[in-house]
């Protein structure tokens, strides 16, 4: 069964299922990008991506800096 979870407000499919936040970031081709990740409203520090599991019910936010006032 394809793994689905909400990333940046949209449900996305993953195959294979990402085991953790680090795998999810890799699957989205965002590895090495200047980003920060929040899972279910809590920041996941970069140092803990590899040990933080993701489940189908999770809501993830992946953010970066853009131009703004």
């Amino acid at each position: 069964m394809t793994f689905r979870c909400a990333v940046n407000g949209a449900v996305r499919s993953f195959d294979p299922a990402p085991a953790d936040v680090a795998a999810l970031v890799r699957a989205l081709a965002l590895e090495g990008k200047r980003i920060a990740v929040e899972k279910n409203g809590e920041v996941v520090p970069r140092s803990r991506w590899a040990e933080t599991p993701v489940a189908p019910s999770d809501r993830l936010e992946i953010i970066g800096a853009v131009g703004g006032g």
Partner: protein
Amino acid sequence: MNAPHPTLPGTSASPDPLVIGRRRFSSRLLVGTGKYRDFGQTRAALDASGAEIVTVAIRRTNIGQDAGAPSLLDAVPPSAFTYLPNTAGCYSADDAVRTLRLARELLDGHTLVKLEVLGDPHTLFPNVRETLKAAETLVAEGFEVMVYTSDDPIVARDLESIGCLAIMPLASLIGSGMGILNPWNLRLILDQSKVPVIVDAGVGTASDAAIAMELGCAGVLMNTAIALAQDPVRMARAMKLGVEAGREAFLAGRMPRKLYSASPSSPTSGLIS
């Protein structure tokens, strides 16, 4: 004493630094990075402005975009500028706090932030109740909070007592370019504040920036006035000069106004008859 942040700009070189908490800056002009044509123009305008503190927004990453697409962080490296991540677009204290926690993670523990909690999408007027609530949480979590607010002196006083490091009242609506609409309220805030008061929003042209500084403001924060000028880079330089001229005039102390009598500048004797 070891400087806690060795990369901080300003430091001891400036005889008249802008002091935000434990940080010192030589430029009193703070500039936003939005609305420019491209990152090249953004960087050129920032360089022309002399700004050391630049605001940035925090937004969802565009997943699936071109991997080689230019990024703001490349054009405006955090090593060369002091980033001031903002909460633009947030309408609740919770969203603002979440946004800045993410910004702190994104920027490797950086705690200097611009808090703004909006109350209305048309006027972008701040929701002061949510702003106060967010400020309390952020200060308690160790953020160095510079706060956008209305020009209400009571709210400004409350934000200062919460522990905000700079009070940043609007001069007129965000992006309006309407200038300093209520200098008297700004004066009330300036007279009572022990932390820097920085005009944030409403400046349209260099004379507006100069007026803010002549009133005694510690600095001016702007974005649209530069980005939407016909020549943004030239306007950035004009704003730098406007801020500097206004600051010098404030420090020099203007002559008293004489409403009902003129005073000649040339000698009154020795005239040919």
